[in-house]
């Protein structure tokens, strides 16, 4: 029982990371109809920025984090300008391919500029963690969960309680109507890219102390986030969060009780099962096209 609880804790921690990346992913789908294969690179870049600011330049930890997030937000706009903007009127596939191109580019640019050596980063807190009954709560996992929860709450408040949030929602629901109502749709989409990139960066920053920071980080996280998205329901925000958490738990339990080498396969088996049995996911809408 104690082991199970411990595994659940770990799984939820990893799942929270998937959920954050999935969240950035789903926002882009909703705002711009973009399936961004570069979402994992956002996390990778966030983690590398932290390495640069904290490990190399020895800035204070919080300054390094805030600086990294700010740069990631700005980067989101650049990313949109390169991959989305020129292709925005040409349907889904060209944008998908160009984000794939961007992910190859980013991963390899980091490799060239930084080298292949994996880096280790300190956690948010010096204390290793706290013991609660049979479960040892690692401080970094705890931080991840707390910060992820706060971010989700913050996002909820922004979207539901502010005018900017309403505009973003209107843009994601009907671009044409939104622009007729005087909402600057292009700006809303760019804001979404910035936010999505920042939130991806935060996920990378949070997971950096747990995994080694390397260029391989990106593709693993991205694929899991995609899977979380489909499991939760394509385009659904609560779905992305729950899908991410579910994936983290299933993966951790699968690795502990069934097989470690096949750990990465569980996510995709779960995904396939959902796609074939319940393609609309946990929260998604039925897929249909109007004649």
């Amino acid at each position, binding site marked *: 029982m104690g082991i199970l609880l411990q595994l659940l804790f770990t799984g939820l921690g990893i799942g929270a990371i998937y959920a954050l990346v999935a969240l950035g992913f789903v926002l882009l789908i909703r705002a711009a109809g973009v399936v961004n294969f570069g979402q994992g690179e956002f996390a990778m870049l966030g983690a590398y920025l932290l390495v640069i600011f904290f490990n190399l330049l020895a800035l204070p930890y919080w300054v390094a984090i805030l600086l990294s997030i700010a740069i990631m937000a700005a980067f989101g706009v650049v990313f949109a300008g390169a991959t989305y903007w020129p292709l925005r009127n040409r349907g889904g596939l060209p944008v998908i391919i160009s984000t*794939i*191109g*961007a992910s*190859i580019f980013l991963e*390899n640019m980091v490799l*060239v500029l930084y080298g292949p050596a994996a880096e280790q980063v300190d956690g948010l807190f010096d204390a290793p963690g706290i013991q609660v009954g049979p479960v040892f709560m690692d401080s970094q996992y705890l931080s991840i969960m707390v910060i992820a929860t706060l971010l989700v709450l913050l996002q909820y408040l922004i979207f539901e309680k502010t005018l900017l949030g309403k505009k973003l929602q209107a843009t994601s629901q009907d671009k044409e109507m939104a622009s007729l109502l005087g909402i600057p749709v292009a700006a809303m989409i760019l804001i979404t890219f910035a936010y999505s990139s920042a939130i991806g960066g935060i996920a990378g920053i949070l997971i950096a102390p747990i995994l080694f920071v390397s260029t391989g980080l990106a593709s693993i996280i991205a694929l899991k986030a995609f899977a979380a998205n489909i499991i939760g329901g394509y385009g659904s925000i609560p779905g992305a969060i729950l899908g991410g958490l579910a994936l983290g738990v299933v993966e951790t339990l699968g690795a502990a009780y069934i097989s470690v080498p096949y750990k990465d396969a569980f996510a995709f088996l779960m995904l396939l099962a959902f*796609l074939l049995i319940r393609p609309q996911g946990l929260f998604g809408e039925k897929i249909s096209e109007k004649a």
Partner: protein
Amino acid sequence: MSTPPPGSFARPWRGIPGLLAAVAVALVLSRMAPDQGYILNIFMQAATYGIAVVGLVVVLGYCGQISIAQAAFFGLGAYGVALGTVDYDLNFFVALAIGVAIAGALGLLLGAASLKLGGHYLAMVTISFQQILTVVLTNWIGFSHGPDGVRNVPRPMLFGLSLDGGRDYLGLCLVTMVCVAVAVWRLRTTRLGRAMQAVRDNDLAASTCGIDVLHTKVAAFGLSAVVGALGGGLFAGGFRYISPDQFSFAESIVMLTMALLGGVSSPFGALIGTGLLVILPEWLRFLHQVYLAVYGAAVILIMVFLPDGLWGFVAERMRRRARPVLAEVANLPLLARTGEETAEIVLGVTGLAKHFGGLKALDGVDIAVRRGTVHALIGPNGSGKSTFINVVTGLYRPTAGRIDFAGRDITGLPPHLRNRAGLARTFQNIRVFRGMTVLENVMVGAERVGNDVAEDADGIVRRALAALDFVGMRADAHRMVGTLSYGHQRYVEIARALAGTPEMLLLDEPAAGLNMTEKQALGQLLRRLKGHGLTILVIDHDMNLVEQVADHITVLNFGRRIADGGPRDVLDHPDVIAAYLGEPRSEAA
């Protein structure tokens, strides 16, 4: 100017001289390569990847389905050959056949997933498949040798000839590549190829043209997987060593990029893309590690500046002005009919209901269309007219009610089977196959299963030309349909329906979006069709048009039938006037 002799539309030998020439070139080329070493490996890689990328043309280029798992199929072929020959002592070609068969079967399965899923979902299924295969190949060490891979893969004997030498084996790979490319090029102009392109351009319209959309997608995935595995099997022999990382997600992306770079709509484009991306690393060698970054950036630039790939760019500039087709063809069979109106009910609809949640778009509608009549279905916006046509043609499932067509209950049939039973339609928002020529669009209609010419390649062309003659569009036969005006696209849609010799034609607001002249021409066309006794159900707002052609009118409002009868009676009916013009002032007060 020459008139093609009769019977020359189908050209079964087309491409054969080119194939022979290309095979010869491939063999010569293989003799010029060194017998071993680095340069040979580059050739070998280009040839085997080329085969797999040509496979992508089928699924992505022709059928429009994203597959990010071509490296997985490539790997299945490679492992089939490697494990079959090394561990199980099978003959090379037997092992290859097993690998190809397994890949083909899994490809069919992936295609079957498209029953429920499209677009990004399907892409995710292929990615999952790709990832799971990589994990299994890496970890099932007892079977696959794990990350160490399989060594000493032998090369085969063919007709008593040893292909162990590098040049000889390269010859086999290049000849296979050429044959696969020509076969895929030919596929484009076959019935299956046209069906794939129709599904790509507009799957709803394809289903109402009698195309089984699911079967077509499954076939595309299956073919693509088979071709991919064929390339992989040859790859294993070529390099004599394989390991799981050679068939990873990243390689699938590389193959996708090769196809898109060269031009995914043509196997020759795919080969150009493959060659370039195999050689590019050599050219970019001076960039050292930056190479992959440059490559990623190149992908974005290609997408932005060469949307149709290199081949598309070249083909666009080399496109010759197609000559008009001059051959005389027989008239459409329906033109031989006389416009006899009979009491027989062709389409009988009883109690038809369609609810979308709480909205009752159709609420118990009865309609009987007699053979040889033009039956108009009118009603204000939102009265349920288009929903009616969509339910009758099978695009929507009815909530309740029954549809009989030509003496048979079709209520539960999918759209393509309704079309095969003789029900053809056009769409309010025109649905033509934009990536195809006018003639090809109409040929898709002509080759519906059940049409008299459906099995006759030559007859299909003749029938399509006849249908184009009827609507006056023959001169544009070789134009891309997307370049035509809106009104002319409508004619193409009508010709597509007529070429299938339907029992009955459903026209969904044919006058929508047409100007006055075009509307008049359309009215004349409908009167001509009526004169030849084709049963037509037409929906329209244009009362002028309806009055000109209708024998019988049914009026819908709020999903219910409010009037039914001869044109005069119906148009004078107070409920109809009220529905269209509002209540008279005296009653409203």
